[in-house]
């Protein structure tokens, strides 16, 4: 195959094809799905998955993992709600929420890096800790679990319904975030270090790279963006609840895995995760519009993940085999 066409063999190209096929299939079932407005505005229902999945990609590329972001989303929403409740003005409260998110990330990083316990275990603990903290905080001002904290000023709840460059605000934030993180990962020293740290910890260490600092920043970034997701959801629903983020946990990890990042570190792209987020999100939306109950969509997105990943695994196995057999190698040329 000519080098100029080699990008077609990339996993991301396959995901794009899959996404186009998915949209066309749902369009055939229900033509309303294909309307630009419904394609655009249905994103508001799943944008939060992408907002946390993108920085999670960085964490996973650097060889770590974080599951506590699901609680950070709710915790930061509650921090915002409580601050507003106590009379702080909205921009300051939003800043506080983002700060809280960053601190959560810093906490995870500090525990992981000083105790050298596996990140999955630590963040599992902080998943409980943060959601517990959120529940205690919201309980302290007497807010019920399911109503949450409401009564925010109009201009805050309008944020999620505003437009930027003709795009709904949540989607615009996601795209800006993708460009920002993509550039950081691709064009900065920090971004390249993230890959190397995940690829080979020893090699990075012997090259004198600030291993711990690189890892720390990936967790802090995830915390900050989890806070932003919490704020967007609070604005979208008009109330801050502790469980705002629980649904994002599995979908976001699914998006990162489907997007081609390796849980062993060193592999993955922002673009892949972005496309996978759209794939997972539109699957849920499309099924809903085709009249399939939302219950089945969970099964289907699970099945999608399994088929995609085991397909890639099997295809990878085949190509490895073909390298072992000289005849097959020639045939493929």
């Amino acid at each position, binding site marked *: 195959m000519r080098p100029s066409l080699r990008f077609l063999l990339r996993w991301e190209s396959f995901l794009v094809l899959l996404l186009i096929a998915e949209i066309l299939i749902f369009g055939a079932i229900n033509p309303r799905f294909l309307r630009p407005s419904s394609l655009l505005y249905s994103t508001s229902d799943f944008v939060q998955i992408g907002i946390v999945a993108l920085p999670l990609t960085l964490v996973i590329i650097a060889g770590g993992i974080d599951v506590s972001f699901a609680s950070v989303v709710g915790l930061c929403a509650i921090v915002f709600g409580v601050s507003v409740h106590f009379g702080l003005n909205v921009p300051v409260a939003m800043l506080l929420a983002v700060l809280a998110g960053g601190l959560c990330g810093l906490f995870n990083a500090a525990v992981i890096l000083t*105790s050298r316990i596996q990140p999955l275990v630590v963040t599992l603990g902080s998943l409980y*800790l943060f959601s517990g903290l959120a529940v205690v905080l919201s309980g302290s001002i007497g807010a019920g679990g399911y109503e949450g904290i409401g009564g925010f000023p109009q201009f805050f709840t309008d944020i999620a319904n505003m437009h930027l460059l003709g795009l709904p605000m949540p989607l615009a934030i996601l795209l800006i975030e993708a460009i920002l993180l993509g550039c950081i990962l691709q064009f900065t020293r920090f971004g390249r270090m993230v890959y190397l740290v995940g690829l080979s910890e020893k090699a990075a260490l012997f090259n004198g790279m600030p291993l711990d600092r690189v890892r720390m920043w990936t967790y802090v970034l995830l915390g900050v963006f989890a806070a932003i997701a919490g704020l967007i959801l609070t604005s979208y629903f008009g109330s801050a609840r502790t469980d705002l983020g629980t649904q994002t946990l599995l979908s976001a990890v699914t998006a990162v895995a489907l997007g081609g990042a390796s849980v062993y570190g060193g592999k993955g792209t922002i673009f892949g995760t972005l496309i996978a987020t759209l794939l997972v999100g539109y699957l849920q939306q499309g099924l809903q519009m085709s009249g399939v109950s939302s*219950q089945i969509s969970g099964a289907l997105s699970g099945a999608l*993940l399994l088929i995609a990943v085991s397909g890639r*695994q099997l295809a990878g196995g085949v190509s490895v085999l073909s390298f072992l057999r000289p005849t097959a190698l020639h045939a493929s040329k």
Partner: protein
Amino acid sequence: MIRFFSKNRTASLLVISAVSFALIGAFAPGFLSFATVRTILINGMIMMTVSLGVMGVLLTRNIDVSVGSTLGLSAAVLGLLLQAEVALPLAMAGALATGLLAGLLNGVLVAVIGVPAIIATLGTLGLYRGLLLILTGGVWIENLPQSLKALASPRFAGFPILIFVVAAIVLLAHLFLSHTRKGRFVYAVGDNRDAARHIGLPVRHIELSVFVFAGLMSAVGGIIFAAQIGFLPGQAGSGIELRVIAACVLGGISLLGGSGTVAGLVVAVFFLTSIDSALIYLRIPGYWNDLIAGAMLLLVLVVDGRLRLLIDKSVRAKRYANHASTDKGQSLIKATPGLTTSGGNQ
């Protein structure tokens, strides 16, 4: 003393449990009673069985996050079969078969196809939950027959029959893992997969078996759930996977595979369960539950991790000290000073 506790997670957890029980007992009279212990044991049954299954998977350095959905799915199969007036033993067999198949699919994905366990079981977590909702149509299964609920009602000294089944399973698992060759194989695979393969262990077969066992144990958990609760919501068992992994880690089962004991797990499960009961006696609102559980888990882990690092350091320091003293006077080593720093014979 410190060394003993750092080497023996079960002992340190037992001491922590005893101290916290005594403290709680001092503040809340009435907590330290047979009835409390009984309640904790009964409440911990589901978590005990499910975490036993997950433990096997963790020992081989894999992970299974789909157990909650498997629990729900097999409980739903049990409920639907009972509603269709199938005899109880047959319905229970159906539930166990469901768990077995669910575990088998996980095992095939991980051991045969080679998908990373966390990704594979994350996929089946969604898949099995969806299947459960499709099967039940999203409707709660109610009116489970009395014969099923009787399994969970007090019988001997306030203990239900099921608890003896659970105790037997725990005992068998302990004997299997620590006293049989096959049991040690499980540890070997998790400790060093390549080495295990090279000495001729059927690595893939073992990995497949632990996933099937995890599925089976989740099904047992599902049966206990149905018997205890008496009805089946669509969300039965969801979220238990995280609690179970937390219990395993607290009990000293390493996520890096190859270490951990059933005894440690038993203490950890009942320690976590007792937090719920203790909060009630201390009159702390239930919403503190997650915060305290999370803080406890992190605290134990961090202290444990720091202790281990310290011990490692002191062991290494001693080793080098030995080395330095024996090296003196050996002309061979003196001639090549690089040897002492590179470790020599360890």
